[in-house]
């Protein structure tokens, strides 16, 4: 199990005075995927990441990175981890290449050979000898990724990496994440941008109020707790009458040009279709409704707020 997971936490806890910022967080991130870490601002995402990277101490719980315990084997664990926490920061009086040299010096002699490749990978070769003070936000983000790549990382931990990027930059970043995953690396992407996580990640965990409230594959997370169909037919009024007689139909709602049908089970769609067709109603569209991650996220977190 440990070999399969590149990042694991058990009951990870962090307090700031009386406030519990991270409350017994248990995470398991499989190797070779893009894993989203979703939460509102202040939910505990960055604090969790900071504990994983040894930037702040945990008050309780255990962590492993690359199967190695942290902080006990921190140096070895982080040797092939690249991370951007919050926004990437640099010595702005140095060039992009010089900034990478300062990090390569800290990582070890073998790292210097990766500088050129890392710059090329993020498309900064032509601007590498300019001072970072002249870089745009997008270029700094890319230089941050280049700095991560110096580690030849098995795991990249990216905290809100698309902050400040324009739509083209976000798309480019998403493509880069998928390319990194395609190389067998794992990307742990923390974000409050639900759409971003849904498009870029294979799995995600949702943190709210310092606690993990849901975790799983994106498809699982977006799967609704109830089944819902969208139906288009040539006689909606008669279809509503028929559907109302069916015990498996919980609710029928008229929406512009379609009916939204809530069922006890999504597998009943074929039975709905058969019933309507036998009643001589022409069905032109019948498809299950999938929630977006955003809908599920808001549903989960607002439900929790209601309980609180």
């Amino acid at each position, binding site marked *: 199990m440990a070999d399969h997971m590149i990042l694991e936490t058990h009951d990870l806890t962090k307090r700031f005075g009386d406030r519990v910022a991270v409350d017994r967080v248990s995470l398991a991130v499989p190797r070779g995927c893009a894993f989203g870490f979703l939460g509102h601002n202040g939910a505990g995402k960055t604090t969790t990441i*900071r504990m994983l*990277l*040894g*930037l*702040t*101490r945990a008050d309780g719980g255990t962590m492993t990175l690359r199967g190695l315990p942290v902080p006990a084997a*921190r*140096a*070895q*664990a*982080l*040797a092939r*981890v690249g*991370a951007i*926490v919050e926004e*990437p*920061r*640099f*010595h*702005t*009086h*140095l060039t992009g290449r*010089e*900034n990478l*040299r*300062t*990090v*390569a*010096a*800290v*990582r*070890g*002699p073998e790292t210097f050979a990766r500088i050129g490749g890392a710059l090329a990978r993020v498309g900064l070769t032509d601007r590498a000898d300019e001072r970072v003070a002249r870089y745009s936000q997008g270029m700094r983000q890319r230089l941050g990724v280049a*700095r991560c790549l110096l*580690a030849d990382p098995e795991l990249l931990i990216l905290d809100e990496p698309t902050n400040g990027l324009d739509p083209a930059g976000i798309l480019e970043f998403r493509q880069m994440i998928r390319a990194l995953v395609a190389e067998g690396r794992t990307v742990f992407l923390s974000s409050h941008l639900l759409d971003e996580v849904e498009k870029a990640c294979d799995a995600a965990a949702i943190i709210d109020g310092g606690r993990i409230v849901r975790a799983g594959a994106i498809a699982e997370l977006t799967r609704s707790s109830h089944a819902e169909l969208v139906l288009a037919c040539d006689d909606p009024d008669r279809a509503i009458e028929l559907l109302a007689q069916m015990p498996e139909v919980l609710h029928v709602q008229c929406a512009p040009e379609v009916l939204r049908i809530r069922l006890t089970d999504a597998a009943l769609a074929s039975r709905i279709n058969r019933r309507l067709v036998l009643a001589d109603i022409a069905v032109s569209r019948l498809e299950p409704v999938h929630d977006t991650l955003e809908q599920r996220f808001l549903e989960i977190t607002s439900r929790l707020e209601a309980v609180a």
Partner: protein
Amino acid sequence: MTVVTVRQMVGAELLKLRRRRGIIALAAFFTVGIVLLYFGVRAIEHASNPAANGPAGGVRSLDHATVVLSVFFGSLAAILIGTEAGTSDLASGVFGDLVVTGRSRLALFAVRVPAALIVTLALALASLALSVAAAYGFADGMPTPSASFVINSVLWTCGAQALICVVAVGLGSFTGSRAISLTALIGWQVIASRLLPQISFLGHLRYAIPNIALGALKPGLTLPDANGLAPGVGVALAVIAVWALAWLAAGGWRTVSSDA
């Protein structure tokens, strides 16, 4: 950590310092520039009125130059460089990115010290070389410094600048703030270090002032503002060691223990 890694980490710290052109220029002014001004002005004065103004060179001028380069302007250069080395990663926000490489925080702190010392001592040696050349070149009949006096003066001036530089690295790493460290150190060096020796009821406690301890080891004339205070060599060395080690320990402790 291998020797190669240490050398490369020190090299990276040197790169950060060297590229701070404004700070390096100011530090060069406080050392090389001040020496050029000191001997230049004195040479002009002597040339314009030899009867009223003695020669610019000679052993006495070299002695004065070492004082200027150690506890006066030279100390400002050491403070600038040491503070920059101590605060650079923290102030730019890069420290966290270095921590996540897995490298020990103590190592990240430790390499700042040799880098700051290299830059500080390079400027000190350049300005001392000029001072020695001027002491001989402008002697004009005045006694010139002996080889042993030159060596002792160079060692003492470098030692004094190294102490101030190390304290600045430690304090900079401790506070994480360039502004606080510079204000505290310049205030201490320019004001407190000169006022405290004059407060007689402090008695032998004044031996703990670094400038008093440095003065006890100085070749040639005594330091101005020493107010006759002259601790023994052992006490002076102990005071210097405590100041250096205490601030290094404070800087190292803060670097290791604080959130990055």
